[in-house]
């Protein structure tokens, strides 16, 4: 059996840069269609986009809302991890993320990085 390749997308951009929020979801969804295991890790300002209720408010150009793109990524099998500690760093209220994003920490990001065949950060 061929082992699936793994791509890790790291999202550090926040809701002040909506054009950067779409890229990991679109790339990761495409990756799953290419039989690649795709994971998005949100940290620093990146956690803003997965806070409950935020993605619904974001829509740019002819793209669907960020929430639609995010939901589609989830449905296609993209795994999502969110650094809860980043919300502390930004002084946001803790832990209220979209239901399919798993709250994890620093050890998980390090492990994902070592495991990935490719990593790209936005």
């Amino acid at each position, binding site marked *: 059996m061929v082992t699936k390749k793994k791509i890790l997308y790291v999202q550090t951009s926040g809701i002040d840069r909506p054009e950067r929020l779409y890229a990991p979801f679109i790339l990761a969804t495409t990756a799953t269609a290419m039989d690649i295991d795709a994971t998005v890790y949100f940290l620093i300002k990146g956690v803003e986009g997965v806070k409950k209720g935020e993605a619904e408010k974001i829509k740019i150009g002819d793209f669907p809302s960020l929430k639609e793109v995010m939901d589609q990524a989830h449905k296609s099998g993209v795994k999502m*991890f969110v650094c809860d*500690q980043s919300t502390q760093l930004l002084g946001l209220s803790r832990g209220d993320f979209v239901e399919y994003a798993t709250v994890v920490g620093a*050890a998980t990001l*390090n492990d994902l990085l070592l495991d990935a065949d490719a990593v790209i950060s936005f």
Partner: protein
Amino acid sequence: MTTTSGKNSCEIKVDKTLDCMGLYCPVPILKTREEIEGLASGQILEILADDPAIEEDISRWSKRTGNEVVCIEKKENGLRILVKKK
């Protein structure tokens, strides 16, 4: 690894308890590392934690370091995790 309560692997004797309640990433992992170093091979460390990041992190930390998570038990106010030193 067990994630439900009441399984046999959760009822084994522990050698040391580490209370990480109220502590957040990365502190529980750093403290786990410190405590594991003080144990002998095969001994069990019990970790009590309410950090939402701990479940995924401890599993990955254990795999990387060669230690073994033998039980993750959900409690009312957090998790009880048993780690066996390699």
